[in-house]
């Protein structure tokens, strides 16, 4: 059989990860009640979400012990999603930016 199955995590690991996820869920919910300055609430919540998602992907989904190709596939998903989010945001964010004088230099 494919070798990597033997490295598949065992129930103990699963339980630990589960515990970790539950705790993180509690933490992120609790932290949300604190009014933090600026975008800090969002940042904290999303960082925790990323950590949780990573735990699920790496352990529950066996990504940790999967082939390079599988890892690459998962990364590709994140990468292209990232491209979409960033490039769309760039348009919205920079629509109201004030033009540097170079933009108007060529106008007559």
């Amino acid at each position, binding site marked *: 059989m494919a070798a990597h199955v033997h490295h598949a995590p065992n129930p103990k690991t699963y339980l630990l990860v589960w515990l970790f996820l539950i705790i993180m869920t509690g933490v992120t919910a609790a932290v949300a009640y604190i009014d933090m300055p600026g975008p800090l*609430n969002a940042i904290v919540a999303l960082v925790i979400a990323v950590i949780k998602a990573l735990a699920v992907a790496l352990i*529950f989904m066996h990504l940790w012990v999967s082939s390079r190709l599988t890892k690459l596939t*998962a990364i590709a998903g994140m990468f292209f999603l990232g491209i979409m*989010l960033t490039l769309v945001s760039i348009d919205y964010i920079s629509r109201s930016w004030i033009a540097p004088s170079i933009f108007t230099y060529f106008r007559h």
Partner: protein
Amino acid sequence: MPMDSHTMTVDHMQEAGHPALKPYFDDLAQQRDASTFGMWVFLLTEIMFFGGMFCAYLIFRNLYHDAFVAASNTLDVVLGTINTAVLICSSLTMAMAVWSAHMGRRLMIVVFLIATVLLGLVFLSIKGVEYKEKWDSHHVPGLNFSTDAFTHPEKSQGEGELGHPALPSDVAQHTVIYFGLYFCLTGMHALHMIIGIGILCFLIRFAWDGHYTADHYTMIENFGLYWHFVDIIWIFLFPLLYLISRHR
């Protein structure tokens, strides 16, 4: 270049007659590898599918922050947290089901799969309660939407306990976008859960019949990937919808 080319070994020659081996695969390992990879590629498309909605959410949250804060505060964080925990538990039982399959324990597979179904149903029920609440407070776009709860919080009961001031109507009208996206995102997620539960029922049946052996349980393994993926989507939906917009 020998990234993943296959060589003939004696080992799999013996498997040639395995009942689960499809005629167009050389051996079970290749077959298993291919379907697991296929599942991952499918999840890739799912990422992009939800990604479109995440993109819309990102843009509008930044454009209409006040409306999103007000609307987000109508969600019940406690229910959301419980649901997150429920889904995480179901991920655990799913992972255990896969592990049981790997160990070749028929009964354990069935037990864990049933547990997964039950937890999934609990999640959907709680979601149902939340939807019901949204319906009652007229927050369903297109069907019974009204911004009254935001423009006149004093009139609506059960809400506004967080004590938010009334929103001007021009701000309040944008809550429809929040709820529109809320229903799209959670609805799509719930749809994935429902499909998942449907498939799970079949898996339970097959597992009970002893279809899965320690050397052939790809179906369960791949379904596990799907289920965990749906969990991951929720892991992001939870903070995005419930948590990050609680304060202005």
